[in-house]
């Protein structure tokens, strides 16, 4: 079983195919690598630590059950896990308050038409390339993009945190997204 620190993007892809084949050691390795980040995301979106802990377990049970549907030609592993986590959280919020649930098509249930032109190597690199693109943004845009992506805090709160006008937050965010989008279009 690889140590978490040894696990780069390529190894993550290999973990997924082993998990799909029922390999629990590979599952444990992925859990150790990614679960604390999933929990951090859920906490940032406003879950209590206990609720985030429970949701994180649910997310990884879903990862285990749907591993055979993970398609490396369509999304990177972390993107796939991220979308599962987001959808689980929304489902959880809905269940808490109502018997009526609604929402988005989970990626694992999305239709399978339109074969991707990407090969596996390209998509396992895509998250890395986006990460690189983020590090190449000016620091003010980097700060805005990660704050606004993760924190449920409105843009007003970001303006306060960074001590800049609200309009500046919005224009920085838009600039940063435009640049990232240009990178992501090539992926």
């Amino acid at each position, binding site marked *: 079983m690889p140590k978490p620190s040894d696990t780069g993007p390529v190894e993550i892809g290999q973990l997924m195919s082993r998990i799909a084949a029922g390999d*629990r050691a590979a*599952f444990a390795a992925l*859990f150790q690598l990614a*679960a*604390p*980040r999933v*929990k*951090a*995301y859920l*906490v*940032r*979106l406003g879950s209590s630590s206990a609720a*985030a*802990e429970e949701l*994180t*377990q649910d997310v*990884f*049970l879903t990862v285990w059950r749907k591993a055979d549907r993970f398609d490396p030609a369509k*999304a*990177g*592993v*972390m*993107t*796939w*896990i*991220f*979308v599962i*986590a*987001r959808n689980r959280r*929304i*489902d959880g*919020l*809905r*269940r808490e*308050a*109502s018997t*009526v*649930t*609604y*929402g*988005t*098509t989970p990626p694992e*249930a999305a*239709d399978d038409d*339109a074969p991707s032109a990407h090969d596996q190597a390209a998509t396992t690199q*895509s*998250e890395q390339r*986006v990460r690189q693109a*983020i590090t190449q943004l000016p620091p003010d845009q980097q700060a805005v993009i*990660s704050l606004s*992506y993760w924190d*449920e805090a409105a843009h007003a709160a970001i303006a306060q945190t960074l001590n800049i006008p609200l309009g500046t937050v*919005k224009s920085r965010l*838009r600039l940063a*997204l435009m640049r*990232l*989008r240009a990178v*992501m*279009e090539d*992926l």
Partner: protein
Amino acid sequence: MIQFPPADPRSVPNHHPALDTLTEYAAGQLRAGFDLVVATHLRGCARCRSEVAALETLGGSLLNTIAPAPLNANALAATLARLDEPAPPPPARNLDQLLAGARRRWIVPGIWVAPIDTPHDPDDRVFLLRVGPGASTAHHRHSGAEMTQVLSGALSDGGIIYQAGDMVELAGDDAHHPKVAGDQPCICLFATQGRLKPTTLAGRIAFALAGV
């Protein structure tokens, strides 16, 4: 029972959510009602689906860089012990199921609303609104933002015609007066943050009846 035909997978309407809105959607930050409206738009918009896919890739990349939150010492063991549990039934999150459960309330001839539950955000309103040709909705203001997805027919607002598949976003401080365009009834999915505030007496009565 209210049903809408499935959208052409390649269709791209003319009016879309703002990039900020799609980002909040991708990040899981949108309020419940708006999340539903954007999800409905995505079903019929190939362009926004591909934007959201790119933004989800951004989310995956950022997940790699987020500071990890340590889990309880037994979290892995507890999860491993649950691997053989049977999968729970998937939650009913199909939009058609939801719409099927929505009950119509006629307000005046030609106009009905079907309120949809907004869990965990009781101050928000989500509803289907059907307005016959030639009719117009009450002139209104709202305290928060409003999103509208046109499901069938066409709507005119502020000099722009919105067709089925289009989405309209309004900021909180706009007062406006959407009208049905063309000779077909218009059915829309609306979500508002906070209650609507009609600016005319007839509107206030209609809104009170409709519970929006």
